[in-house]
C-alpha cells in the first residue's frame, strides 16, 4: 500500500438492476492531489463518487481511502451500519443540491458532524464551526437559517460542514451546477483555497476552465468506463480519445 495514494479504487462495479453503471473502474488519487472527473450526464460520475464514501455500495471491487479499505470482491455480506458510518466519517462530501439541514442554524449545521459523530464537546465544536465559517467567508451568518442564504452561501456552508469532520478527502459532486452563474465564482474560490491547503479532492465538474487550472489530473468517463485520464491541461486542451474530444468540443467557447 503506497502512502502517496490517498484514494485507491480497483475493479469497482455497480449495477442498478440490469443497468451496469460502473464497469470495472480503477482509479487512484495521490495525497494532496486534485482530480477532476468529467463526462457526459449519465456516465456514472455521481455513482463513482458516491461509491468512494459508500453512499452507494458497489457490487464488487476494492475501495481504499487513507488507511481504511473495503473489499467487495470476496465478501457477499454488506458492511454493517457501524462500519459504513466509520468509513464515511473520513471523507467529506459536497452535493449539487447543498442538502443543508433546514431545521438547524448555519452554525449548527457545521457543528453537527463533530458533535453527533465525533462526540466533540459543544463549545469546542462551536469554536471549530465559527473558524470554518470564517474560512468560507460566512462568519456573520452563523445564526441564520439555511433558507435565508443564497445558493453560493449555502454551498459554502456545506463545504464548512464537511470540513468540520476533518476529512482526509473531499468529494464534490457538481458543487456549482445548481448555482446562478454569478455565484459560481465564490464557491470555486473556496475549493481553490482548499487545493492550496493541500486537501486531497475528487470533483465532478462541468467547469472545464476550473478543472484545467486547479486540478492536477482529469479523468474522463463515459458509459461507466474511464475512457481517458491524464495531466489536467493535457486532457482538456489536447484530448487523445475521440470521445473526449467530442465531449470537450461542447465547452470550447468557455475555455479561453
Amino acid at each position, binding site marked *: 500500500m503506497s502512502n502517496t495514494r490517498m484514494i485507491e479504487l480497483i475493479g469497482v462495479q455497480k449495477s442498478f438492476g440490469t443497468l451496469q453503471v460502473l464497469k470495472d473502474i480503477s482509479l487512484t488519487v495521490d495525497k494532496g492531489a486534485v482530480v477532476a472527473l468529467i463526462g457526459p450526464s449519465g456516465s456514472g460520475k455521481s455513482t463513482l463518487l458516491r461509491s468512494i*464514501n459508500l*453512499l452507494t455500495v458497489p457490487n464488487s471491487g476494492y475501495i481504499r481511502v487513507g488507511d481504511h479499505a473495503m473489499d467487495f470482491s470476496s465478501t457477499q455480506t454488506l458492511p454493517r*451500519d*457501524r462500519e*459504513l*458510518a*466509520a*468509513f*464515511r*466519517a*473520513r*471523507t*467529506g*462530501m459536497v*452535493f449539487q*443540491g*447543498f*442538502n*443543508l*439541514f*433546514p*431545521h438547524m442554524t448555519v452554525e449548527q449545521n457545521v457543528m*453537527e*458532524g463533530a458533535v*453527533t*459523530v465525533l462526540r466533540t464537546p459543544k463549545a469546542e465544536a462551536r469554536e471549530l464551526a465559527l473558524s470554518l465559517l470564517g474560512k468560507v467567508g460566512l462568519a456573520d451568518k452563523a445564526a441564520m437559517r439555511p433558507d435565508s442564504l443564497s445558493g453560493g452561501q449555502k454551498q459554502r456552508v*456545506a463545504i464548512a*460542514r*464537511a470540513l468540520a*469532520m476533518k476529512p482526509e478527502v473531499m468529494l464534490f459532486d457538481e458543487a456549482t451546477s445548481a448555482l446562478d452563474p454569478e455565484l459560481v465564482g465564490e464557491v470555486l474560490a473556496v475549493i481553490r483555497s482548499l487545493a492550496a491547503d493541500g486537501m486531497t479532492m475528487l470533483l465532478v465538474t462541468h467547469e472545464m476552465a476550473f478543472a484545467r487550472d486547479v486540478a492536477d489530473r482529469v479523468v474522463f468517463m463515459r458509459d461507466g468506463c474511464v475512457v481517458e485520464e491524464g495531466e489536467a491541461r493535457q486532457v482538456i486542451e489536447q484530448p487523445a480519445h475521440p470521445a473526449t474530444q467530442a465531449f470537450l468540443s461542447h465547452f470550447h467557447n468557455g475555455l479561453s
Partner: protein
Amino acid sequence: MQYQWDFGFLLQYKGLVGIGALYTVGFTILTALSGLAVGCLVALLRLSQWRAATWVVTAFIEVFRCTPVLVQLVWCYYALPMLTGLELTPATAAFLTLTLYGASFYGEIIRGGIISVDLGQWDAGRALGMRRSQLMRRVVLPQAFRRMVPPLVNQTVLQLKNTSLLSVLAVPDLLYQGQLITSASYRPLETYTMIAVIYFAILFPLTRLAHRLEARPGH
C-alpha cells in the same frame, strides 16, 4: 307541543358524568400513546428492508383500516376469547382494539412523514458518518415531525370520537354514562345534548389546534 327543557336535574348526576369524561379522555390519551408507540414500530417495519416484516405489517394496517372499529371491538371482545381461550375484560379489549386501530393510522402518518424528507438529507447525514439511529434522531425525525403533527392531531380527534363505541362493551365512557342517566331520568333530550356539548368542548380546541398547525408555513 311544547317541550319543557330542564337541565337542572343533571346536576345530581355530575359524578357519573365526571367518570364518563374521565374514561373518554383517559382512554383517548392512553390509546393515543400506545397507538403512537406501536405506530412507530409499524412505520419502521414497513420502511425496513425486511420483506417478511413489511408484508405482515402491511396486512395488519389494511385489516385495521378496512374494517369498522365497532366490528373490531366486538370481534376482539366476543370472538378473540373463543379463539385463544383468553378472557378479556371490556376495558382490556377496548384498549387493545383502539391501540391497534390507532397504530394502523398513526403508523401510516409517521411513515408518510419520514418518506417526505428529501433523500438529499439522508445522503448528507450519511456522508457525515452518522449511523442509522443518529440520522433518524438528528436529521430525519425532526423534519418529518413537523409534517406529521397536524395529521396526528386529526387522527387523535378521531381516536377520541371512537371511544364512544366503548359503550357497546359497557365501558363507562361519556356515552355509556349518558345511557345510564337517560334510563334513570327518562330525559334523553337534555342528557344527550349535554353529552354532545361535552364532546364538542373537548374536541373543538383540538381541531382548531390542528388547523393552526396545518396553516403554519414551514418545512
